[in-house]
């Protein structure tokens, strides 16, 4: 609506059309008129007006039908009903058919101007809302590209040059200089990881991974997750007890994202555990379901927070080593598990620890009716589990 708002009046009475045109003439509107519904709809399609007045009672196509056609084809065009018999029922029916307002006949010039002004204002709001919605969708769609280029690339370049400097100046820098350089690298590393997590949560449609599902070894998933979680565990002197399934169990899934899901749980377990404690990974197969439990004896989760741990954007309280989280890891994990037609649950007691359990359908190989094995080797006593 950069130009003057365009108003169309559809009415079979020429007197009404003329007086409407007169009232708005020379003002801030462009005015068009149509003598019947069919012609009116033609003009709607041709002129794309902002506001359309429709007489309810016309020979030929009824006002209600015109309203409904406009609503279906151009939901952003505002329609107002002109009705000679201002009964509530006809107005209500018109509103149901998409009209925004109604104007009872006969009306004064001021009444017509006021209703027009209100209708145009409504149109402005509708357009604004639509454009905001479009912007939001675009932003969401391109979030990955925007974030990766605007934030991640420059940070990666800075990091690359810090690394190069550290490499070139090794032996030249004194201890304090080397420490400071190391801290810079560390900070940028944290930022890069944070961006990575955000990207993951907002840009990846986890459902789309379903297309690439294939038989996936659960032992490979556990091994992959352990590899990811181990460096942090070693630094905190936390021992991760993880047994493998023997023989291996397979699920129908995507190894990369399953590793990510389990690594998130392990990462949390380590983060919220005290130095020197243990974290267990337990695999258990029952009938056609595989459960993977990650059990820690760390600080636990307050009861009132439990319902929200998977909902995302709730950064948990800082861990024992006061590392703030992005608060998205568990939300991503849940999305991944759901995409695999699995479930995830948590049990926790503050001060005693938490147990996160992922359940996944086991992939049954055709013609293989051996009992499904349970991985128990070096997995700690089953009694401790699921405390």
């Amino acid at each position, binding site marked *: 609506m950069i130009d003057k708002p365009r108003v169309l009046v559809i009415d079979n009475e020429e007197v009404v059309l003329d007086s409407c045109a007169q009232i708005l003439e020379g003002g801030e509107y462009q005015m068009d008129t149509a003598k019947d519904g069919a012609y009116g709809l033609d003009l709607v399609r041709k002129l794309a007006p902002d506001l359309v007045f429709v007489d309810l009672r016309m020979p030929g196509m009824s006002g209600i039908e015109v309203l409904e056609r406009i609503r279906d084809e151009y939901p952003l065009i505002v329609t107002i009903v002109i009705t000679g018999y201002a009964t509530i029922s006809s107005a209500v029916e018109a509103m149901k058919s998409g009209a925004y307002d109604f104007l009872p006949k006969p009306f004064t010039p001021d009444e017509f101007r006021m209703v027009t002004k209100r209708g145009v204002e409504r149109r402005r709001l509708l357009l604004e809302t639509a454009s905001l919605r479009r912007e939001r969708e675009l932003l969401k769609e391109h979030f990955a590209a925007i974030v990766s280029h605007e934030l*991640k690339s420059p940070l990666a*370049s800075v990091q*690359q*040059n810090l*690394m*190069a400097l*550290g490499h*070139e100046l090794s032996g030249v820098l004194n201890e304090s200089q080397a420490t400071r350089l190391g801290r810079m690298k560390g900070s940028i590393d944290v930022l890069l990881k944070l961006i990575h997590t955000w990207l*993951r949560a907002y840009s990846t449609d986890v459902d789309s991974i379903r*297309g690439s599902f294939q038989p996936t070894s659960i032992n490979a998933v556990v091994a992959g997750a352990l590899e990811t979680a181990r460096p942090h565990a070693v630094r905190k002197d936390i021992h991760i007890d993880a047994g493998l399934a023997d023989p291996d169990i397979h699920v129908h899934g995507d190894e990369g994202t399953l590793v990510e899901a389990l690594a998130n749980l392990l990462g949390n377990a380590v983060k919220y555990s005290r130095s020197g404690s243990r974290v267990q990974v337990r695999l258990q197969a029952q009938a056609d379901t595989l459960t993977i439990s990650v059990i820690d004896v760390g600080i636990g989760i307050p009861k009132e927070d439990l319902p929200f741990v998977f909902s995302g954007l709730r950064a948990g309280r800082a861990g024992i080593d006061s590392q703030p989280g992005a608060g998205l890891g568990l939300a991503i994990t849940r999305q991944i598990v759901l995409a695999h037609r699995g479930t995830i649950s948590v049990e926790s007691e503050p001060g005693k620890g938490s147990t996160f359990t992922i359940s996944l359908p086991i992939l049954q190989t055709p013609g293989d009716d051996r009992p499904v094995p349970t991985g128990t080797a070096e997995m700690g006593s089953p009694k401790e589990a699921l405390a």
Partner: protein
Amino acid sequence: MSPQERLLIIDDDPDFVAGIVSILAGAGYQVDTAYNPKDGLQALQAKHYDLLLLDIMMGRGAEGVMIARKLRKDPKLRETPVLVITGIREQIAFLFPGGPLHPHFVPVDELVEKPVEPQLLLEKVDSLLKAAQARKAQTT
């Protein structure tokens, strides 16, 4: 420390390239740079390179993939080892859905993520050069 191998790096981020070149030059490699796919392809045609370092996400999308495809089709260039350096691992996964993260563009290639530790970069470059030499010795 006297390798005289000539390397080409194609990447549209000059700052990142600077951080890579200084590591490689420090190790004695001769390094040429190209900041867009077009210059990169021209350089590859004009000179012999012992190794190509290639960014995937350039310009309007995965233009690095386009270079890799051209390399693969060229009987001479396809023997050039390639070290793919990419910003985001997922983007590789998007480009090759269902495939392994490492796409194997040409017979000898490897993938590292940005940013890359100097020691890891030098190791990968060295092992790719050796692998390409071994392949050459086998076929001749």
